[in-house]
């Protein structure tokens, strides 16, 4: 396996310049080295099957706290399977089986005593297609906190979530309006607000901007720069420029030529992946020579 795994990466501390512009990765970097980041996910030899089909091969990598980790690769390479396995969203798919270990802060996510509902409360997810509930804007955000009994200060909680998702100013005068009256980009930010309203630890974003126009995409990308101070973010994207813009680290998955199974090819600093990849397959893909 060509994957170097998370341990090979030199730990570093990012210093945020606070500007809202989206700098190119090279300019974004400000490595200090030194302190070692805490691992949020420690994934060991993970493999996934759907029935007889193997969707993902032995995958080992580490995802660190308060970083944006991008997962890139061609269609069908197991990106979505990978990210959906991190909060057990695949469990309801018939025939789903997982091998290896997914450790979340040291706890095995797939252990018998692990509570799936609790996993998802800590590890939120935003999907490819904006999927607000057919309820009011307010109720979309307030629904999950209410379920969890966080009833005191609910208004403040909703406002905070909407502010952090950078949509408060657009909806504050019509919180009772249906969420379906919002534009696609607004709906997607509302979905992010809905996810962060329960104050998760991790946000998983499965191609969150693929159904959005460039302006809405830029808004989501800006948002990610701010959100990573509070959350650990894993984002699947088919858009390499997007990965280069938003991610600190990038994992490149590819389809194995022989058995058509998704495999992790290379994982490292986004800089390295895009400018000096170790694996020729990564180089071909990021330079656009891959079909």
């Amino acid at each position, binding site marked *: 396996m060509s994957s170097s795994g998370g341990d090979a990466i030199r730990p570093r501390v990012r210093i945020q310049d606070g500007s809202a512009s989206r700098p190119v990765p090279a300019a974004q970097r400000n490595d200090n080295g030194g302190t070692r980041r805490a691992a949020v996910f420690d994934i060991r030899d993970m493999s996934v099957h759907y029935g007889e089909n193997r969707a993902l091969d032995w995958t080992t990598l580490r995802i660190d706290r308060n970083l944006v980790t991008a997962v890139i690769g061609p269609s069908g390479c197991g990106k979505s399977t990978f990210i959906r396995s991190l*909060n057990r*969203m695949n469990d*309801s798919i*018939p025939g789903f089986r997982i091998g290896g270990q997914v450790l979340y802060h040291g706890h095995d996510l797939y252990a018998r005593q692990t509570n799936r*509902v*609790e996993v*998802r*409360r*800590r590890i*939120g*997810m*935003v*999907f490819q*297609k904006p*999927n*607000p*509930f*057919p*309820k009011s804007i307010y109720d979309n955000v307030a*629904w*999950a906190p209410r*379920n*969890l009994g966080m009833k005191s200060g609910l208004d403040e909680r909703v406002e905070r979530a909407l502010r952090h998702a950078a949509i408060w100013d657009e909806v504050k005068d019509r919180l009772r309006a*249906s969420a*379906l009256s919002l534009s696609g980009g607004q709906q997607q930010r509302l*979905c992010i607000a*809905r*996810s962060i*309203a*329960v104050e998760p630890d991790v946000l998983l974003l499965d191609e969150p901007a693929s159904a959005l126009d460039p302006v809405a995409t830029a808004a989501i990308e800006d948002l990610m720069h701010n959100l990573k101070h509070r959350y650990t973010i894993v984002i699947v994207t088919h858009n390499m420029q997007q990965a280069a813009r938003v991610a600190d680290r990038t994992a490149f998955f590819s389809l194995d030529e022989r058995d058509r199974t998704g495999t992790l090819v290379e994982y490292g600093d986004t800089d390295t992946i895009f400018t000096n990849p170790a694996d020729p397959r990564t180089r071909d893909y990021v330079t656009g020579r891959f079909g």
Partner: protein
Amino acid sequence: MSVRASLNPRAAARGRVAMEGSLGDRILRGLCIAAGLLAGGTLLAVAYQVISGARLSISTFGLPFLVHSAWAPNLGHFGAAVMLYGTAVSSAIALLISTPVAIAIAIYLSMLAPRAVRIVVGPLVEMLAAIPSVILGLWGIIVLAPFMQRHVEPALHGVLGFIPIFGPAQTTGLGVFTAGVILTVMVVPIIASLSRDLFLSVPRELTDAAESVGATRWEVIRGVVLPTTVSGVSAAIMLGLGRALGEAIAVASVIGAGNVVHVSTFETGNSLAARIALDFAYIVSNLHTASLFYLALILLVFGLLTNLIARQIASRYDVHRTFA
């Protein structure tokens, strides 16, 4: 046009196909319009026949027909109160019992049951609707009524006897309550199978979204699945009500053909459909016939109303229209 077509064989072929298509289209269109008109025409014809058949009774009794409880063909006394009451109460009992049961079945079959159970139990529930009502009626007389009389009615009277509708059990078990239970058996598969399909049609993105914010299975059902399907489920309940209101044979078998309005549902009664079905064999006068048509008119109005309401509810908030 013809010149261009002849110059270009492909275009000519296309033109011919289009011509044939349009002829076939026209025939098909004509057949469909005829079928549609036939359905509408039948409804109007039946409505007209029922109204004209009831004319004598309407002019004799007028609206007070609805509140008079006497039904004595030999004396020329006719009133619909007993039948209206029996129909309303037996249908209400059927809906009260079947709605929660059917929705529970639908939730189980669509979201909780393992695949193997779904495959076996799902069709069984639908097959319950395929039992001919006369067989249910027979089962009602032989099995259900004695069981109700011996076990269910005394128990209900013992626990809830302070409510007048649960009076003491009578001698046979035939009565309005037993009719309601028979109707429940007929209504449950309708509501259950329609609701199950509705629950299955809730977009996966919505249930995924709910699960991704840490909702339990029950919270997903209560917070997302039921609210997005509430209009469809209400429409299904109205269709079930339509079935309950119009059922004649099964009800006629077990309702006991009583002639008095009793508060206790364990007493005998009668329903509109049952009275019409049974009385036509023993017509004694023109007024009798007209009064049966009057009952039929009431039943027709109820049936059409429940159907219209069901459509209205179903079209008002359609999940799939707002969330395509």
